[in-house]
Structures are given as structure tokens and as C-alpha cells.
């Protein structure tokens, strides 16, 4: 890693932001070091506000924050010059060609016109808009506009890439493509990524570290790899049919079974019950199974746990 | 079934009326409807205070003779000898050799303009009389209200009934209700009509109130005796009919055209050139009939320039019954067309 790991990417100290009198962020304290940080939280938790504050679009009421060691209250311009931002909503200039817009954005970030042109072509190829780069952005489809947004966010070679809901509204193929791109950018090792998304599956594929906000408080800062547990007592089984029969038999062995429809059964194995016995039951009953696995904690469960414990803690 | 129908109609109307009255868009309509009333009322307050002031000045600075006793060419001294000291005097802009003397006898204000010591101009300001005000009112109604106010109000309100919601991408909420499209149409139209009539008739009333307020009871009683109250009632009725007629026209326009501004401009042009059209073409339009309904404006003609009187007077006025029947029939036909259009309306914002 070429990064100075001693310096946090984002450092928040008692960061408070208010809209009018309504507090949106209530004194956040955190030091985030990860190369790819996920920002999660329910609607209205202040995720977007945090991003806007980091970019200097919201006035800070109290406290401060540092991005790569630069104070957001004093060095806004500096921060914006090394941050790439992909906003959540539609953002494009309808009557410009993709290459012209990306180039202009590059120039606004301080690239000389020629360099900006080179970079514009390069990043558009890179995000896969090579064929369409002379077309007007107004004629682009939703997925292409998302890609163009990503292209303009990386055109100036940022050191921190802030992505707000990058996969929103994309169809599955485009979503896969977008995630692969972000993974590639991350693994180039030259960019930190701050990703904000509701789709936990996407966050899971991209991020190492996850920060969870709720009602303007920071309630959890999780290292994903460390948190992913694999509990050997929880078993998921899917069968083609005969779910009830199978569940009955397993209950006979002391399992707690719950069926969630379509032949899906979740079981909690009692102490001492061996997996072999489960297979034995399957073979004996001749149940046509199609899946059998231990349950791993998904990000969703981590998230829900965090929310619950926050409720309890408050 | 009729109970359900009534409930549905009312349900649509309450939502629409609220939308029409309370949204920011409705400010335009209020402005169109109340602008003349506001001006007139403002003027009335100004005028009353001005007259009070003149009266109080006249008590202390009564001129020695009638204000008509001075003539251009008199010297400053002569004027002062005849009328006494002015209650106010003012000098022209720096360098210019003019002096203004003000006199008043309690009702009329006289400004004497001296150029290098001699009367150059006499500016009388007399209180406007009731008939003059009524002429002004009828002019405002004819030239502004009928041709522009109600017209643009109708464009704004009725064209947006459907088109506005299509542009907003909100029409589907209405179409997804278990309501016949015809009922929806009727509800929207009625809501638009009610609010238009309310706003614009209030506008008319305020204009009259603002004007009549200036006069004392005696003058007004004489005026009401002349059964000129009919003029007011006619204005109110014509406003309502105008809303009805233009309303149906622009409901249809809003359903047919993607951009109602263009046809609205075309219709506006057509209505404006109505007086200059050959007699055969005149009846094709609303303004001809609406004007036919207005009380004959023969009294007004002397003081109004010929171009404008041409604009105000319909060439060959239609009979009131014919006019009303025509307007109502055209509206009904257009509403029937609207119903058919509403039935065929599809929600497809993407390609719009």
C-alpha cells in the first residue's frame, strides 16, 4: 500500500451539522483508515449530509473534520481538488458530449486542457463508455449516465473517491459492471473509496470497513473481515419438496427448525448432533435437497445487530 | 350509485380546488385577477387622504378668488394679488427657471407653473366624478379583464388541469382511482370553474368596492337608483361566462397539445384581432359574444380614441340569449370532446 497508514483518511472530531435548528449530525467522532469505507444507515441518518459536509457544501456548526489531514473548515478547496465525487441523483449536462463534459470537469479540477482531454478519453474507455463518448449525454440511458458520473469523478485522478449510491437504478448487468469497476479502482491501490449505499450486498463486495450512522450518531465502526463469523450451529437447507417431512424428522433429532417457504429450512443444531446424522436423515428419507450450508453472517445481519444494540443503548 | 358519484365528484373537486388555491402556481391567477382591484383600492386610499389634505389646507390657505381667475401670461405678482400666497411653492430642477405655486379651494388643486416669472402653465387637478370612474371601470373590464385577465387565468388554470399534471408526472394518481374518466374530467373542470369564477368575480367586486368607496352615500344612492347596479351584475355574469367558455376551450387544449402555450398564443391572437375581422368570421370566438353581453358602451365613445373604441365595441352585437346559448353550447361540445380525450388518455411520461 502506498498510503501513509498512520494518517486517517477521514477524521471526525465532534462534527455537528445543523439545518436551521434541526441537528443532522450530532457530534461524530471517528478515525477511518480503510482503503474502502462503507457508509451505512437508515434513511435520514445523515449519510448524505456527512458526505456534503466533507465536501464543504454544508456549514459546520461545531467540531471539525479532516480529510487526508486537511481541515474541512479551512482547506475546502484543497480537499475538493483531490476528492472525486459521484453524486446520488442524476448529474449530467444534457447538451454536451460525454467527452466534453468529462474534459471540462477535469479542467475545473485544475488539469491543463490537453491533459484533461487525454484523461477524459482514457477514463471513458476505462468505464466502458468508449463507443459512446461523442454522443450527447442527454441521449444516454440511466446506466450510461451512472458510468459517465463515475468517469467525471475519477478524471482528475483523485486520492479519495466518494460514491453516493453508485448502483442505484442500474439493471443487474450494469450493476455488476459498476461494482467490478469500483473494485478495480480500489485494487489499483491509489485511491481510497468512501461508498454510501442502501444495497448491503454491494457494500459487502466493495468495502473492508463499514461505518454505521443512525439519527446523526455514529453507532458502529466495523471491520468486515473480522466481524464475519461462521457459526457452526446454524444450518441452512433447501429441498425440492418434502420440507415438512424433513423438518419433522430433524425436530425429532432435537433441532429447532423454521421454514421460510419454497423449501427453505433454517435449523439450529443442538449440541452434540453431528452433521453426519443430518446426511443420514436425508438419505433415509430420500429427501431431494438442493442446498446445505452453514450460515455465515451477512452484512445485513451485522447491520441489523448494530441497529438493535443502538436502540438498546440509547 | 348516484351517492357514490357525488362523493367521487366532491372528492376530486376538494383535492383540485385545494391545489388550485394553495399552490404557488395560483399566485399568478391571484395577480391577474386582483391587480386592477389592488391598484384601484390603493388609489382610493391615496385619493381620500389627498382630498382630506386639500380640505384641511383650504381651511388655512383659502385662495382669495376662484381658481379659474388666473391666466397664462400673468406675472407672479399678479397671481399672488389675485389668489393670495400659495400654500406650497417649489422650484424646478437645478438650473431650470421654473417655479411652481400650489393653490387649492378644498376640492380642486391648481398648480401654477411660472417660467421666468410669468405663468406658463396651469395644471388643474379636479376630483374625478363617479361617471368618469365608471367609465374607467368598464374600460378596465373590457380591455384588461376580459381580454387578458380571464383569458390568461383560464390558460393557466384549465390548461394545467391535465397537462400540468402530466408534466408534473402526477396524473397517474388520479387515473389509478376507481373513477370513471368522465367523472374525473367533470370534477376537474368544475373545480377549475368554481375557483376561477370565485377569484375573478371577487376581483370584479373589489374593483367596484375600491371605486365606490370614494363617494359618499348621497352620490351612491343616486347612482344605484339609476339601476346601474345592473352593470355590476352583468360584469359578474360575463366574468362567469368567460370562465366557463375559456375554461372548456383550454381544458381541451391542455388535453390535446403537449405545449399549450403555442395554441393559447394563437387563440389570443385570434381573439385580439376579432374587431378587425370580416363580419362572417367574427362569431367564431368567445370575445364577440362576451362583449355583446356587456351593457352598450355608447356613452363611453366620446372620450375614447377611435382605435380603442374599435377594440371595445363588437361590430354587430349578438342578442344576449344567442350569446349565452352559443357559449354554453360550445362549452358543452368541447367538454364532450374532453371526455373522449380523457378516456383515451394514456400515462406515458417517458415519451412525452
Amino acid at each position, binding site marked *: 500500500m502506498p498510503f501513509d497508514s498512520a494518517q486517517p483518511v477521514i477524521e471526525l472530531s465532534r462534527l455537528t451539522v445543523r439545518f436551521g435548528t434541526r441537528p443532522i449530525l450530532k457530534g461524530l467522532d471517528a478515525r477511518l483508515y480503510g482503503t474502502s469505507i462503507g457508509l*451505512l444507515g*437508515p*434513511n*435520514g441518518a445523515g449519510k448524505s449530509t456527512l458526505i456534503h459536509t466533507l465536501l464543504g457544501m454544508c456549514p459546520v456548526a461545531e467540531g471539525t473534520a479532516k480529510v487526508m489531514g486537511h481541515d474541512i473548515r479551512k482547506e475546502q478547496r484543497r480537499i475538493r481538488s483531490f476528492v472525486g465525487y459521484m453524486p446520488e441523483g442524476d448529474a449530467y449536462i444534457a447538451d454536451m458530449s460525454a467527452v466534453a463534459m468529462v474534459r471540462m470537469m477535469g479542467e475545473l479540477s485544475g488539469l491543463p486542457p490537453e491533459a484533461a482531454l487525454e484523461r477524459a478519453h482514457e477514463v471513458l474507455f476505462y468505464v466502458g463508455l468508449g463507443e459512446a463518448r461523442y454522443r450527447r449525454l442527454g441521449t444516454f*440511458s*440511466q446506466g450510461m449516465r451512472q458510468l459517465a458520473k463515475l468517469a467525471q469523478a475519477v478524471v482528475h485522478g483523485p486520492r479519495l473517491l466518494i460514491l453516493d*449510491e453508485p448502483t*442505484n*437504478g*442500474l*439493471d*443487474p*448487468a*450494469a450493476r455488476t459492471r459498476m461494482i467490478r469497476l469500483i473494485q478495480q479502482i480500489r485494487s489499483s491501490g491509489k485511491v481510497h473509496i468512501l461508498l454510501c449505499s*442502501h444495497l*448491503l450486498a454491494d457494500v459487502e463486495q466493495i468495502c473492508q470497513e463499514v461505518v454505521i450512522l443512525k439519527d446523526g450518531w455514529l453507532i458502529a465502526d466495523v471491520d468486515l473481515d473480522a466481524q464475519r463469523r461462521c457459526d457452526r450451529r446454524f444450518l441452512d437447507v433447501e429441498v*425440492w419438496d418434502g420440507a415438512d417431512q424433513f423438518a419433522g424428522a430433524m425436530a425429532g433429532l432435537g433441532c429447532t427448525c423454521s421454514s421460510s*417457504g*419454497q423449501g427453505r429450512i433454517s435449523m439450529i443444531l443442538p449440541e452434540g448432533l453431528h*452433521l*453426519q446424522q443430518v*446426511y443420514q436423515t*436425508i*438419505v433415509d428419507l430420500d429427501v*431431494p*435437497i*438442493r*442446498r*446445505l450450508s*452453514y450460515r455465515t453472517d451477512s452484512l445485513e445481519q451485522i*447491520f*441489523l445487530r448494530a*441497529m438493535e444494540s443502538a436502540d438498546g443503548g440509547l | 350509485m348516484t351517492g*357514490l358519484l357525488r*362523493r367521487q365528484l366532491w*372528492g*376530486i373537486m376538494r*383535492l383540485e380546488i*385545494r*391545489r388550485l388555491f*394553495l*399552490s404557488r402556481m395560483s399566485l399568478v391567477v391571484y395577480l391577474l385577477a386582483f391587480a386592477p382591484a389592488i391598484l384601484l383600492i390603493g388609489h382610493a386610499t391615496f385619493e381620500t387622504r389627498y382630498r382630506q389634505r386639500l380640505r384641511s389646507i383650504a381651511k388655512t390657505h383659502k385662495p382669495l378668488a376662484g381658481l379659474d381667475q388666473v391666466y397664462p401670461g400673468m406675472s407672479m405678482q399678479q397671481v399672488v394679488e389675485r389668489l393670495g400666497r400659495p400654500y406650497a411653492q417649489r422650484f424646478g430642477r437645478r438650473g431650470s427657471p421654473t417655479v411652481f405655486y400650489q393653490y387649492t379651494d378644498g376640492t380642486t388643486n391648481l398648480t401654477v407653473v411660472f417660467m421666468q416669472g410669468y405663468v406658463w402653465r396651469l395644471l388643474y387637478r379636479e376630483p374625478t366624478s363617479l361617471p368618469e370612474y365608471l367609465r374607467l371601470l368598464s374600460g378596465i373590464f373590457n380591455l384588461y379583464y376580459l381580454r387578458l385577465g380571464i383569458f390568461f387565468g383560464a390558460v393557466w388554470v384549465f390548461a394545467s388541469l391535465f397537462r400540468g399534471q402530466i408534466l*408534473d*408526472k402526477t396524473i*397517474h*394518481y*388520479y*387515473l*389509478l*382511482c*376507481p*373513477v370513471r*374518466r368522465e*367523472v374525473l374530467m367533470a*370534477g376537474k373542470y368544475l373545480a377549475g370553474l368554481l375557483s376561477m369564477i370565485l377569484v375573478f368575480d371577487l376581483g370584479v367586486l373589489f374593483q367596484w368596492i375600491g371605486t365606490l368607496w370614494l363617494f359618499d352615500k348621497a352620490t351612491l344612492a343616486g347612482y344605484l337608483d339609476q339601476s346601474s347596479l345592473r352593470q355590476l351584475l352583468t360584469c359578474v355574469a360575463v366574468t362567469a361566462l368567460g370562465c366557463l367558455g375559456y375554461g372548456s376551450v383550454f381544458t381541451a387544449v391542455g388535453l390535446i397539445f403537449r405545449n399549450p402555450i403555442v395554441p393559447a398564443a394563437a387563440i389570443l391572437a385570434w381573439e385580439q384581432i376579432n374587431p378587425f375581422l370580416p363580419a362572417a368570421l367574427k362569431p367564431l370566438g368567445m370575445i364577440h359574444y362576451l362583449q355583446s353581453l356587456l351593457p352598450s358602451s355608447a356613452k363611453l365613445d366620446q372620450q375614447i380614441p377611435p382605435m380603442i373604441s374599435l377594440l371595445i365595441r363588437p361590430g354587430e352585437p349578438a342578442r344576449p340569449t344567442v350569446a349565452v346559448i352559443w357559449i354554453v353550447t360550445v362549452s358543452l361540445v368541447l367538454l364532450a370532446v374532453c371526455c373522449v380525450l380523457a378516456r383515451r388518455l*394514456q*400515462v*406515458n*411520461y417517458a*415519451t412525452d
Partner: protein
Amino acid sequence: MSHDLVVLEDVCRFYGEVLGVNHINLSIGPGITSLVGPNGSGKTTLLSLIAGLIRPSKGRISVLGYRPDQPQQLMRILGYATQFDSFPMGLTGLGLIYSLLRMSGYPHSDCRKMANQALEQVGLVQDSHRRIGAYSKGMKQRLKLACAIAHQPQVLLLDEPLNGLDPLIRATIIQMLRRLGREGRHVIISSHVLNEVEMISDQVVLLSGGYVAAEGPIHTVRTEIKDQPMEFLIQCDKPRLLACSIFQHDHVVEARLLPEDQGLLVKTRDANQFCRTICRLALGQVQIHGIIPTDDNVRSIYEYLVGNQEASK
């Protein structure tokens, strides 16, 4: 015409020269049905056709026996949450639903009750008196849902209902949809998020380029795709040994060892038979602690049936 099915017979719809949907034949029963497909494959068109917001160029549609061009009857049993994030101006959340119910002809007290119920179901009661203009994207999304379910329709059409919702609310909404599905209502959802589709839907309709590419329960659809052998990830302690024994069977066409003992990838032509075999082998000397189908999901079906066209674009 069947009275508990949503039936489309040879339905076509064109917008000028642009294709909306083409020759759709579907009959959708109770339960949760998901429409899946790339952008522009006609999902929204299909939903709007069923709701009668647009008319088919050709073909017939019947929703539980009602025709879409009779809104006064159809809309009593149908609710539609569209993809548009727009609302009539100047209303509160409660006001909107209340007004819409009033418009449908319910009396005042019923409207209040029904509106509150609907808002409660989507968890918006607290914000029901705020103006919609001040709602966040997720709240708007939920409000649309509430509008659609307020009159307790038998048929519920939802266009991207989970878009922009946070995971917590997503979970509650999914629960609600499941409940509606269990109650025997027709819930038709269009969605882009395939793992959610997989979690909630009883059956999928896969659209591509305006045509139906596949329909039915997910696993049935998967087995119908004969030219793609099914793939399983077997997690075990002795992958090499297992690979040797597994190759004895005819239906196994390929086995691949993953690096770092992550397991063994096996492709088979007969999934059912394969699972039986594995279970039997598990009783032997190999400790198998996971049999995970890697392509028996909507994503794989999607990729097999639609993905190729995407790649060529």
C-alpha cells in the same frame, strides 16, 4: 376469462417505432411474482398495461376478469405504485392518501381509518402530517406503497418498490409483501436487485427486449435451461478425494479444485441425482459441510438468458 388470474393474451405495445412489449402471453396467479429484466425490456410497460394506464396496440388483458379500460371497476381491486417519484403539490402524506380515497368515493371516516392503516403498514405514521415536499427519497417510496395498498387491493403492482429504501425498512416492506402474498393476493413486482427477487418471490417473469424470456418458479426455470449444466460448490475437508469419487458418476461433467481449500466446483447435468450422490458420499470418509448451488439463482438465470445479449451491446 379466469377470475383469479391476471391474463395477458398476445399483448403488444409500441411507442411509435419503439418497442414496449411484444407478443406477451402470461397468466399470473396469486402470490409474489417478480418481473426481472434489463432497462428497457418492458417491465414498466407491462405493469402499466395491466393497470390500464396505457393501452395495448394489440392483444387482450384481463385482470381477474376485469378489463383495464374500465377503471371504475378495475381500480377497486388494483393498486399500482409507479416508478415516478412525483406527488401532487402541497399535500401531506396523510392528506394525499386521504384525498385519493375520498376521490375513490369512500366516506370521510373510512378514508381516515384506511389512510392511517396504510401509513402504519409502511411505518410512516410519524411523518404523516409533514408535507411530501420535505420527504426523503425513502419516505416517498414508502408513501407510494401506502397509496397503492390503502384500499386493500387484490392485485398489487409495484415498480421497483425497494429502490432507495434502507435495509431496515426494506426488511419490513419485504415482510409486508410476503404477508400479502400469503394472503393470496397477486403481488407483481419489478425489480433490479436480484438477490431480493430471489428472497421474496414465488415466481419470476424474465423479460428481455420486450419478450418473455422465462417464467415460473426460479428453480424450475433453472432446471429448464438444459444447455447449462448446474454448478455446485462443495466445501469439504478432502476435496481431491471427493473429486475422484464424484467423477465415477455419469451426470458429473466437470470438477474443479479451488485454490486455498475453498472447495470443489462441480458441474452436473442432473442436479437432483447429484445431491443424492453427495449426501451418500457425506456418510463416508469425506467430511462435507456445505453443498452450495452457485448458479441456481435468479442472477444465473438472468445471465444465461439475458446476459449474453447484454455483453454484445
